[in-house]
């Protein structure tokens, strides 16, 4: 399997922040994702809710005509929302890698078993 990307190349940044929140400090943020939807949003939300330092996590798509997703994170004092987001991505990647490994070994096992 080549290391080539499966998705079409995209030169612009996909992640930005909703400007209104910076006055409340580092622990409240709404992140704006371009060209993302429930596929990523719900997974991130799940990973964030498993993080004990996250107080609130939710996502929404403001309008179906635009492929934009907003992810709201509120954390404990002293733990920046951006760190929570980063941790959620790290966790999601770890879970996906684990799933991929399990799936491939399950296929191997099924194909090599005589039945």
């Amino acid at each position, binding site marked *: *399997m*080549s290391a*080539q*990307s*499966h*998705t*079409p*190349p995209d030169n612009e*940044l*996909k*992640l930005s922040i909703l400007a209104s929140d910076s006055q409340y400090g580092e622990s409240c943020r709404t992140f704006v994702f371009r060209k*993302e939807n*429930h*596929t*990523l949003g*719900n*997974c991130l*939300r*799940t*990973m964030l*809710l*498993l*993080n*004990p330092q*996250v*107080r*609130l*996590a939710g996502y929404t798509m403001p309008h179906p005509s635009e492929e934009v997703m907003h992810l709201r994170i509120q954390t404990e004092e002293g733990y920046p929302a*951006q760190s929570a*987001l*980063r*941790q959620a*991505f*790290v*966790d*999601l*990647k*770890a*879970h*996906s*890698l*684990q*799933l*991929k490994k*399990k*799936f*491939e070994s*399950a*296929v191997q*096992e*099924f*194909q090599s078993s005589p039945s």
Partner: protein
Amino acid sequence: MEFSSASVNKLSLKEFEVVNTSSYDFTGHAPGVAGNKVDPNQYKINIIKQEDLFLEFDLIGCEPSIANALRRLILSDVPTMAIEKVHIYQNTSVMQDEVLAHRLGLIPLKVDPRKFKYKEKGAPDEGTEEDTLEYSLKVKCKNKQGAGPEADSYIDDKIYTKHIQWIPKGNQEVDIGEAGPVEDDILINKLRPGHEMAMKMFAVKGQGRDHAKFSPVATVFYRLLPTINLVKDVYDQDAIRLQKCFSPGVMELEPTKNGRKKAVIIDPRDDACNRNVYRYPELADCVELGKVKDHFIFNVESTGALPPTDLVPMALDILIEKCDTFLKEIDMTNT
């Protein structure tokens, strides 16, 4: 709130409602679970059935959002090759040009999309050997020599996918081998003597989210594993009625020592979960119906371009790629 470990995992199918469905939509429900390390025993995957185009597997221990993400990714983000541009030189058939072109786009092509690159916007239709496949369709319908006006007196009156010819570009013949349609007998058009079709088709790599023709699966779906719990013993006539409430093979009647027949659950996996039991109030309180919340039974049916056992890892690769892209962006803004 106290939950027993048995009920935490199961949702209950009652007569008019489904209860205990929520999967932890609040924070702090699983303290200390987050972290870089994933418990290696958290996920279990069992392949149940694997054929040419069809795959059934069990995914146990997974969060519903990740199972759904897997389903959505296979459906809309795993790429395939499909005909996108059709240059029609001649079409005197009854089917309009655009309808014909639409049908050609929907034909599944037996090509591995990983060997190709995405075509750039604004690139010419003919493309390069790295991002385009070229096909040709040239047919003319004639009368059979000396035949009467019966139905099978035409030559080339039904146009199938076998009439489509692949025109390899550059090194494609060596690198790719075969690049025809998955099936030879898909009917494209019907002609009568004198009708002619001559066209060139160009196939590119695309994703299902752009157009459904690029989706690599006929469909992919999952369901939860049903559970049936017999609370009371059921015998004879009641047992026969109870057995009929479930799908065949779920419940059987076993003879007991007294000569009566007792209802016994064999395998709730095949149950269609239609909750038929609730039509009979006297039987309704003998069983408890439910579903296991983290046991997903996946069905993947490929259209033929890629084997289904390749689709699942590709979908997970795309998810991992998304994580990498965003981690890079986050780290870029930090430094």
